[in-house]
């Protein structure tokens, strides 16, 4: 019984990890608290829905278009809001509030276009596989496999390529990086593209599994943020660990009590971490003033 819950936890955790990684990439480098990321997430699944169910395009093309739409929206937010704010040297709180405004706009625009109700992509029962006593559905396997593939390629990108190294340097000291002749704005574009891809993929995977509604992004983003805090702020891969941990804890909560206390426990963990271990499990220890 427990192994089934562990597997479920790891699979939902992989989605949290994806969102956490995308959010962390932006937060660690630009220090923007990117709440509109929830909107970016929602755009992906609705674009997928639109191309696949309304225009009847092939499934892979629709998936690709869904991801591309997420990326485009993420870039639009960067160009219209964050970049001007950065040039005006406004405080992080200003970016946060405009990000909230942006989130409200995107989500309500989608609700206007597609309606407030839940949309599903596949109805009916999905095929499932038995591994001993563990049962997993096809889409769960796809979720896990695509997450592992993405995580490995992301880590390789960050460690091996020159772009990855530049992004690491950006998170350490943007001023120094621009003084050695690197164009920070181009780097920011790459950062927003990568995080848009993460949101798009996560969104399409979840939409295939359980469907979508315009407000689904926020709750997922909040759990992604918890994953980031639990894993540790300041590094690029720790959010994955945090995501898995939160996923497993949530599914153990379901096992021991009931599904309704999931949110409560998750955010209790967040507050405990914020108060007693704000650097997270693997994060770098920082001085009090920097937090």
């Amino acid at each position, binding site marked *: 019984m427990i192994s089934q819950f562990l597997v479920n936890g790891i699979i939902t955790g992989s989605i949290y990890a994806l969102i956490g990684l995308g959010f962390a990439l932006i937060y660690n480098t630009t220090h923007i*608290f990117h709440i509109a990321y929830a909107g970016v997430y929602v755009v992906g699944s609705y674009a997928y829905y639109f191309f696949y169910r309304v225009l009847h395009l092939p499934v892979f093309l629709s998936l690709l278009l869904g991801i591309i739409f997420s990326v485009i929206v993420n870039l639009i937010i960067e160009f219209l*809001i964050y970049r001007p704010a950065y040039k005006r040297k406004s405080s992080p709180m200003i970016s946060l*509030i*405009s990000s*909230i405004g942006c989130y409200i*706009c995107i989500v309500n625009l989608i609700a206007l276009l597609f309606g407030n109700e839940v949309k599903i992509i596949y109805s009916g029962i999905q095929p499932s596989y038995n591994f001993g006593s563990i049962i997993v559905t096809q889409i769960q396997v796809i979720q896990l496999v695509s997450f592992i593939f993405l995580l490995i390629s992301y880590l390789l990108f960050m460690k091996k390529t020159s772009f990855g190294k530049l992004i690491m340097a950006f998170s350490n000291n943007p001023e120094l990086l621009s003084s050695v002749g690197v164009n920070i704005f181009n780097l920011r574009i790459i950062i927003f593209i990568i995080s848009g891809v993460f949101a798009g993929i996560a969104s399409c995977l979840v939409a295939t599994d359980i469907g979508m509604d315009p407000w689904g992004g926020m709750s997922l983003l909040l759990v992604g943020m918890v994953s980031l805090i639990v894993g540790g702020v300041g590094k690029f891969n720790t959010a994955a660990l945090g995501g898995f941990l939160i996923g497993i804890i949530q599914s153990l909560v379901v096992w021991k009590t009931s599904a309704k206390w999931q949110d409560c426990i998750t*955010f209790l963990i*967040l*507050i405990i971490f914020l108060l007693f271990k*704000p650097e997270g499990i693997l994060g770098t220890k920082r001085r009090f003033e920097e937090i």
Partner: protein
Amino acid sequence: MNYVLHILVMILIYGILTLSLNLLVGYGGLLSLSQAAFYGIGAYASTLLIIKGVNFFPSLIFSIFLTSILSFFIAYPSLRLKGDYFVLATLGFQIIVFSILYNWVSLTKGPYGIPGIPGPKIFNFELSTPFHYFIFSGIFFLIVFLFFKKLYNSPYGRVLKSIREDEIAASSLGKDIPLIKIWAFAISCGVCAISGSLYATYVTYIDPTSFTLDESIFIASIVILGGSGNLKGPLIGVAFMIILPEFLRFLGLPDTIAPNVRQIIYGLLLIILMKYKPSGIIGEYNLQ
């Protein structure tokens, strides 16, 4: 006429709410996204007593005390966390409170809500018409307004302002910063309970969906929009944000899309304000 009175009552209730948040945002420099949680706790605390037969006023006082004590749960994080981290902690608190209100069915009736809340009784006179409520909440609003006016001109208000500008300088002058902040939260959340209790008895029905994260964001955006740091700004924000949807109704938007259009306007306003006037319409304080 009842329609106008209804809007005025809502403005007064939200006015109390935003004045309470103004103490934290405009004077403490602390953007809290858990105001709806305290609004909800206040509403539920007094409702649960009122339906047991307790009079409105003892229930109100109980709910004020309860929310003031519970405010410690976000006051304590504010002593240790800054900026984004504090906002995240208040977000977490908001979701925990919503989840408790929603799921503790034996106490709060959860998603079914509590219907039929009786109106406040003053010496056998029960408030029933919108006009009664307008006078009643008007009196409360005036008390809260004068209280904050007095508070902001008191030594306490000035110390709070100095903490907002420079915490280290204030502490070097021997001010007990943790205590001052904890009091700010207790006062702010206690005032929230007043508007929660008024709302519950006015609408006569409450359920957890009135106290969600979106509501917290809405309250915060009223304060940011009107401008924080003085008493006028939040009130202009309230008048604007409550009357705007009514204007949209007169424009003849269908009911199915009106809420979404309204939200989009709020969102756009936030973005535009942050770009051109981060202190709000007539605010004195720029969020740092």
